[in-house]
């Protein structure tokens, strides 16, 4: 058998999803456009300090969005990230603030978060509970446990070495930004250059096809939610280190923020396709908009309104791109005039 007459183009080297450049470029252009517009509206926006501030605020959400990219790519969802963040951080914080070893304290936060993530994965993989229901249940129950553990208690006083993770700087860059950057790079590598990343995309794209190859689908699901837990633990660690405090209500609503960042980034809600770069850009975009609204003196509640609208537009653009709706069905008042 000869392949001499076969024409095969080798495609986009190094890009497993083949769509990275398009979505990344589009969102980058949107981000730059927003920077230009906001800078014109309020010159205070266009300052290095302000950008670092935006990135620092976005850092915990970037880290968690990396984990959520895997979950949504695998056709799942995790509504419990805020509750996992709260429970793992109050347990670890209490240990450290009462004189416990900082390394062990950090390990406690990460291990508890991973264990709770794996719990979600087990409910979904082994008890066949739909991800939305499973994580809705754990969202409520884990928040309840966090409140039972330390309702009304504000924990203060982290060891300096741990607070450094949220407040320190290396080469002029805030630690949260550096940690978020490392988490994003790790997530990009994991999704595009490892078996786990391929299985994660296959799980969301065609679960049956993955099962037929002999890969343990349940194990992949368990690992996806375990990794989500790890990212929540890390994101939570950065969050509490930055404000040097935590309480049982910390992270309330953060699941919406994280899911929104991933959707805005272009990861398909129907699974199979995900982009870590997009999720990072989505998280930055949300923080940038929030920052601009604060600088502009808008009420906090406008952030919620604007976030919701951005998510709706992001999903609409995704549906148009994937052909789920045609432009002919989009009301004329929503179409851009050229």
């Amino acid at each position, binding site marked *: 058998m000869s392949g001499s007459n076969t024409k095969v183009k080798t495609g986009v*080297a190094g890009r497993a999803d083949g769509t990275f450049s398009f979505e990344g470029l589009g969102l980058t252009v949107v981000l730059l456009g927003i920077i230009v517009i906001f800078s014109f509206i309020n010159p205070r926006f266009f300052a290095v300090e302000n950008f670092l501030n935006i990135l620092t605020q976005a850092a915990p959400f970037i880290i968690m969005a990396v984990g959520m990219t895997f979950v949504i790519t695998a056709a799942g969802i995790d509504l419990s990230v805020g509750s996992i963040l709260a429970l793992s951080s109050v347990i670890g914080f209490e240990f450290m603030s009462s004189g416990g070893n900082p390394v062990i304290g950090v390990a406690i936060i990460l291990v508890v978060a991973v264990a709770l993530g794996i719990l979600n994965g087990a409910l979904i993989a082994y008890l066949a509970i739909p991800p939305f229901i499973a994580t809705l249940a754990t969202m409520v129950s884990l928040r309840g446990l966090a409140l039972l553990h330390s309702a009304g208690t504000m924990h203060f006083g982290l060891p300096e070495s741990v607070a450094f993770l949220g407040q320190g700087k290396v080469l002029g860059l805030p630690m949260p930004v550096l940690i978020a950057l490392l988490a994003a790079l790790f997530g990009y590598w994991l999704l595009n250059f490892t078996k786990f990343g391929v299985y994660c995309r296959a799980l969301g794209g065609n679960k049956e096809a993955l099962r037929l190859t002999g890969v343990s689908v349940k194990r992949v699901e368990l690992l996806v939610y375990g990794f989500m837990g790890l990212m929540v633990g890390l994101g939570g660690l950065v969050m509490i280190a930055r404000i040097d405090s935590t309480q049982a209500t910390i992270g309330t609503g953060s699941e919406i923020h994280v899911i929104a960042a991933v959707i805005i980034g272009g990861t398909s809600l129907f699974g199979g396709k995900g982009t870590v770069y997009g999720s990072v850009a989505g998280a930055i975009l949300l923080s940038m908009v929030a920052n601009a609204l604060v600088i502009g003196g808008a009420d906090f509640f406008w952030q919620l309104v604007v976030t919701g609208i951005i998510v709706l537009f992001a999903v609409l653009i995704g549906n148009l791109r994937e052909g789920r709706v045609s432009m002919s069905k989009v009301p004329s008042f929503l179409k851009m005039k050229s």
Partner: protein
Amino acid sequence: MGATELLKLSKLNKWYDGLHALQDVSLTIGEGEVVALVGDNGAGKSTLVKIIAGAQTSDDGEISLRGEATTIGSPKDASNLGIAALHQSLGLVGSLNVFENIFLGREETRSIGPIKVLDKKKMRDRAIELLGELAIDVPRLGVPVLSMSGGQRQCVAISRLLLDQVNLILMDEPMAALGVAEGQKVLDLIVRLKDKGVSILIISHNLEHVFSIADRIAVLKNGRMIGTVSPKNVTRTDVVKMITTGENIESEGAAQ
């Protein structure tokens, strides 16, 4: 059956919630033999293929490979026995690209210290080689297979089967989504595989295709094996009669 026995199925039974989908089904496939499995919708063809592929298990019956009793409890078991399956759904992931689909579950990796990363270059080169054996063009190896034509997707799915050393290839309607030219290429490929000593069990509704490639034709009706016939000894009308009436025209071999 003239060839040396490769796979023997004896009195397989399968129930689905009270439905007796396979009833004492027996079949023997020889080394390098092409056996076509025909029958009406609901005859049990796909169920039988899934059991051999390890995607489902039979409730009763025995399977032996080259005379040795074996169990196929999972796709991995089937793969270890050199049995590869091309399912009706093709078993492809639309969002993965060509070589990711070809290597799904069997990815090539390289080590960087203790860490294993995908060896994309190796997989891409091997994919080009495999697709070359099919002599069919695909647009790009890096694009999701969802964006490819049905025929191109079929080619990707078939090339997956050639990745490992296989004894038996199971094909469920491999030409169904193909145009005439691409369908002919698949038929040619089946002949080439047979020449290499690979056995093939193929499900097809197209009797023209069946008669052009099969050494034997096995007819199923309502979960029962009606019989196996040689295309040299029967006409298409005879086979249609077996499919519709369940009446055996010419029984051969021990499998019936």
